[in-house]
């Protein structure tokens, strides 16, 4: 139990650090694309570690209490929430970036822009 608690504390620490970096970078970077970099990657990674901490903790209680514990439902549903979060975050970041470029936002301080002036229809 002691070792599992230490693992849980480490996961919570890593998760909170990356969430804080993500929301700090959202306020610090100059334009929408770099903000999406900070927001998507860091908060996905941080939330992943927070949910992993919850899974470790509830699975340890599940093993201690036996198969019919209510914690089994919690840990399995937390795994589903983690998978949903990983899939949807990347896709919605792509959608926001595409919408931003098509609505005419220029990348700030860009050294190269291959997409400049192209009109892509689908």
């Amino acid at each position, binding site marked *: 139990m002691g070792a599992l*608690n230490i693992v*849980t*504390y480490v996961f*919570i620490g890593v*998760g*909170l650090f990356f*969430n*804080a970096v*993500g*929301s*700090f970078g*959202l*306020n610090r970077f100059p334009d*929408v694309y770099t*903000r*999406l970099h900070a*927001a*998507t990657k860091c*908060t*996905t990674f*941080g*939330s992943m570690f*927070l*949910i992993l901490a*919850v899974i470790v*903790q*509830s699975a340890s209680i599940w093993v201690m209490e036996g198969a019919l514990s*209510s914690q089994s*439902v*919690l840990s399995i*549903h*937390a795994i*589903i*929430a983690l998978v*949903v*979060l990983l899939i*949807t*975050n990347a*896709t*919605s*970041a792509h*959608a*926001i970036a*595409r*919408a*931003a470029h*098509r*609505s005419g*936002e220029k990348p700030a301080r860009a050294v190269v822009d291959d997409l400049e002036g192209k009109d892509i229809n689908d």
Partner: protein
Amino acid sequence: MWLPAAIVMVVCMLACIARIFIGPGAPTRLAAFDTTNTLVVALMVVLAIMFEQVIFVDVAIVYALLSFIMTLYVARFIEGKKF
């Protein structure tokens, strides 16, 4: 051990909400909103084990899926397309 984590998450969410209010342009606001949604899902899972309520995780799953669809539709709207 979960209460300090929840409080730090709320502080991160407040930083993102500040970006929703001040951010120039619709895509920036949408990005900040999407980040807030991610943090809400993680916070709900943490609250579920804190209060030992399994239903919070189900709410988190449904919230993640619905906010994802909302983000896609608003992005489509910002592009200026017909649906």
